[in-house]
């Protein structure tokens, strides 16, 4: 089952990389003009560039050549900077990854307690206030949140830098200051989404017999919520948050743009505008691979969270 799904997802990966290769190569404009600049377009130079980049080969041949190299970890070189694409990705991916992970952690840290508390007293005052607030938060897109935070924390209070990035290895404190606002902007919508999801599932779980049993044994509320109710209620949350990591990876572009962070999103954006096909292909491959890996991981995690799934699989061989 898992193997079949993984195989299916790999075919998706291949299809995506081929389609983006095709699409980028069909774009108007000539690659060599962009590389050489408008002033150096003599025939000799153009021919040289075209043969170096194998631009005269048919598209499928070029795709297969690119794919073969990619499988060995060589994603080619940027048309502009001549930098190895793999190096550039390795250099920039950690920024995006940190942004996404910090944002995810923020969202989960807020939404898990909120979801549990609202489910425990569903219909109560806290529940009504939180439900109303999450509805409002769903209507605040990331860029709006980002502007709000920039205004509040950077312009008015001056607590955080409005733009820029300090690497984790350089100065962890500064690094946190540069990741805080972008991550929070991305987290807001997720806080609302996760809280609602967990609340819904938790309300259902709290009506199950094993919770009644735990309660009748006189276990304290926090223990019932944490040990007995949270795990069986976390499936939707797990799926959605995992799939969201995939979305955030690709979707961090705007936030990276707004806060001038040197992540893969911005790299992708710049590369598309410069027609730097190799860079675009490399980033698309990495992002799609991330999507695929996360999808498979979710399935594995299901089995970890729900022992019934494991035995069922065993029973079927």
């Amino acid at each position, binding site marked *: 089952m898992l193997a079949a799904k993984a195989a299916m997802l790999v075919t998706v990966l291949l299809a995506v990389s081929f*389609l983006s290769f095709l699409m980028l190569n069909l774009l*108007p404009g000539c690659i060599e003009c962009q590389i050489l600049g408008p002033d150096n377009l003599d025939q000799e130079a153009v021919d040289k560039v075209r043969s170096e980049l194998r631009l005269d080969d048919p598209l499928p041949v070029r795709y297969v050549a690119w794919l073969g190299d990619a499988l060995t970890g060589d994603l080619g070189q940027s048309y502009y900077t001549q930098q190895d694409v793999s190096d550039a990705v390795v250099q920039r991916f950690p920024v995006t990854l940190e942004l996404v992970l910090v944002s995810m952690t923020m969202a989960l840290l807020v939404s898990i307690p909120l979801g549990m508390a609202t489910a425990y007293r569903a219909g109560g005052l806290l529940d009504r206030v939180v439900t109303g607030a999450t509805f409002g938060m769903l209507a605040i897109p990331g860029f709006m949140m980002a502007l709000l935070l920039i205004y509040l924390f950077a312009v008015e209070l001056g607590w955080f830098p409005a733009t820029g990035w300090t690497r984790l290895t350089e100065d962890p404190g500064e690094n946190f200051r540069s990741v805080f606002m972008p991550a929070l902007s991305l987290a807001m919508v997720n806080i609302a989404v996760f809280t609602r*999801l967990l609340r819904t599932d938790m309300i259902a779980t709290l009506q199950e017999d094993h919770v009644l049993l735990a309660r009748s044994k006189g276990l304290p509320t926090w223990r019932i919520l944490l040990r007995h109710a949270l795990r069986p209620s976390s499936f939707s949350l797990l799926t*959605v948050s995992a799939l969201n990591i995939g979305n955030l990876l*690709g979707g961090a572009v705007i936030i990276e743009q707004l806060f001038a962070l040197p992540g893969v999103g911005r790299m992708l954006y710049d590369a598309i505008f410069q027609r730097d096909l190799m860079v675009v292909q490399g980033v698309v491959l990495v992002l799609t691979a991330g999507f695929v890996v996360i999808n498979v991981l979710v399935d594995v995690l299901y089995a970890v969270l729900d022992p019934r799934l494991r035995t069922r699989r065993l029973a079927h061989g």
Partner: protein
Amino acid sequence: MADATAATIALDPTAPGSSPLDDAAPAVAAPVGRRKRKKGVVFWLASGWLAFVAFVAVTASWLPLADPKDQDLTNKLAVPGSSGHLLGTDGLGRDILARLAFGARVSLIIAIAAVTIGMVIGGGLGIVVGYLRGRVDAVTMWALNVVLAFPGLVLLLALVAYVGQSLLAITLVVGFLSVPTYARVARATTLTVSQREFVLAARALGARNRRIILSEILPNVVLPVAAFGLVALGVVIVLEGSLAFLGLSVKTPDPTWGSMIAEGRRHLNETTHLSLVPSIVMFLTVLSVNFVGDALRSRFDVRESSL
């Protein structure tokens, strides 16, 4: 689904989880009567706001508004309430109220057209493969997975480079990217509907597939999909704003809500109303769409889990 994570602009207006607006009914007995009445008021307020925005968008040319592209540099960055400019002016002295009204047009056209495209193509596809099942279903779902995994931004930037930054190009891409979501909703609903007795009865009477799909299944799938589409309207409005931040929305100087917010960023150090006023309008609109869509959706009970 979807929110594309809206905020995250994952250009996938339907990313899973985006719209977990579907709350299960509060299981615990809340004072049901009172809650219901309260919800009613909010529902009508939201509908009223949407009607107002739609009205302004349609009649913007005939309303007594300033020209949204008229620059008046001596009067730039006027605060709301200044004489002649009810909501103030932007960095080039253009009237914000007028730009909001004309921007509503762009937002609504993109949102409605993109949702319609996604709904018709995706919904149709979902119904057909959900009814036929088997290999057609498997292949289609695979193809939809490819669309889902495809970084929407690449598609969008590529198309914009090809066709130019037109309303049409943006609408088409956003619509296309949302096809998988509608297809999933429609397919899930079709799978259940086609098990029902009346479908069996129609088949027993010798009805052809086409007839069964059109007159038995379609009427039962349309409402859930449409209710879902309503929520997606808000996602698309947000998406336009996100694109504006990448400089990819409709060409300037045509006003859009997103580009107004994005332009306001440049003046954040001097004054906030440039970003704030359009933000509030966008917020209220998305909020209203969510409320109305959610209220309708809970009636038809489309659950994430059934996708």
